[in-house]
């Protein structure tokens, strides 16, 4: 792998983000709006007489982490879609760029974007709602790592599907994370789910990450077992996503789909 070519892919997507208002809104504006809106709501519940509500940080933390997971997954797939929309895919795949370099560049640039967005949002959250945004962010780092790893896996899987079935299935880039949300226990514990769904939810790295987030925020320390289980699941999914993407690209080279992607 060439670090130079990975850096070029990072630069290519940063140029695109900087010049595209839709991308800037996706990275900064909408996540900011989510966190601030639910931050105000949490403040209202705490200070407005709803004494039974005792965990505004958990609500805002869930919003922020879910937003990061969804954005990471979506932006990996949308980054690849941008190459199809602009018919740049031919030039890239006919250049010395290796597939792993492209994927590494895409992961790195989205990691940078998410890091930047979370940093700004954490401070904005503190300034506007009084919730301890930066302190909250520190609690979220370990679950965030699990979620980003799993988000990368889902993003690569969706990207593979786009390459396999063309941009007709591009809606998956935006909606795939949403399919996982009900069973990811973002705002409620695993025990809140109906029994038949619990087994399914328990194997998801997202569920482990959000359970870990809640335990950390309740002051029960860093739940290492939960985090390790989540990380193992996310890494396995990432490996599967990479293998799937590689196999789809090989198949596209055989079938001629790279020549007629639209």
């Amino acid at each position, binding site marked *: 792998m060439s670090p130079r070519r990975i850096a070029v892919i990072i630069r290519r997507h940063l140029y695109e983000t900087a010049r595209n208002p839709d991308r800037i809104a996706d990275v900064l504006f909408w996540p900011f709006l989510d966190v601030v809106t639910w931050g105000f709501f949490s403040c209202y519940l705490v200070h407005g007489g709803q004494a039974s509500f005792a965990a505004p940080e958990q609500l805002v933390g869930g919003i922020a982490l879910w937003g990061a997971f969804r954005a990471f997954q979506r932006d990996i797939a949308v980054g690849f879609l941008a190459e199809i929309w602009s018919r740049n895919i031919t030039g890239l795949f*006919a250049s010395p760029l290796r597939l792993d370099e492209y994927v590494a560049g895409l992961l790195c640039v989205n990691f940078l974007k998410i890091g930047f967005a979370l940093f700004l949002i954490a401070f904005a959250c503190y300034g506007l709602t009084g919730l301890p945004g930066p302190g909250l962010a520190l609690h979220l780092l370990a679950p965030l790592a699990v979620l980003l790893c799993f988000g990368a896996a889902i993003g690569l899987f969706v990207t593979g599907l786009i390459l396999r079935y063309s941009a007709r299935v591009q809606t998956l880039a935006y909606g795939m994370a949403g399919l996982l949300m009900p069973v990811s226990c973002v705002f409620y514990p695993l025990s809140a789910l109906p029994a038949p769904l619990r087994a399914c939810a328990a194997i998801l790295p997202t569920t482990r990450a959000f359970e870990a987030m809640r335990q950390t925020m309740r002051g029960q320390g860093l739940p290492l077992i939960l985090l390790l289980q989540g990380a193992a699941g996310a890494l396995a999914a990432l490996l599967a996503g990479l293998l799937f993407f590689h196999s789809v690209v090989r198949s596209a080279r055989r079938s001629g789909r790279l020549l007629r992607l639209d």
Partner: protein
Amino acid sequence: MDSARTSAVLVLKATDLYKRFDDKLAVDNIGFSAAKGEILGIVGPNGAGKSTVIGMLSGLLEPDAGSIEIFGLNFARHRAGILQRMNIASPYASLPGQLTVRQNLSIYAGLYGVPHPARRIADLLELFGITALADARFSKLSSGQAIRVCLCKALLNQPELLLLDEPTVYLDAEIAARTRELILQQRALRSMTVLLTSHDLAEIEHLCDRIVLLNHGRMAACGSALEVTRAILGLDREHAALGEVFALVARTRA
């Protein structure tokens, strides 16, 4: 020419290429070679297999059978190293519209590891007369301007082998003529080998040293314009007549 070619360095050698898409045989047992500094035209009616051949030579498409050697190396085994030394321009390949011309070219300069990229980009923009467009968004360019930017991209790494798919298709007559002269100039300067597809028969005759005529995925003839004419229309022909050749080939397809 043949004896000269035998002693020349072969840049490209395609042997027994075969490609099937579902029930359609797109390329059937095609083989040809190109020597250093040669301009080889790949021509034929729509559906003859030109794009499939270009796709295979650019690494976007894997042949079902046969082999491709470029710079004396097996393409399947040395893909990245070979692609480093070649480039492609096609009207079906474009560049990200949100990026400026300069940003797009700097991205590809980075991918190809071009030394002194800013200088190289400035030189190419000047060569194609589009220096004023350097900071324009690619999406704002006319199709003729966009084609010229894509040609700049294709020449960024000073390729030893250049694949040009319909290089002048959206250009007006004056710019197309200038582009043809630039191709000849680059070939003369650096002994660059060029593989070119075009529907413009005058362009093919003007630019190409040899022609590979494809029909129904098969190689119908190969040689100079005159040799192809004689192979298809009869040995008594004294002048190249690619228009007649195409008309006859089109009739046999009907």
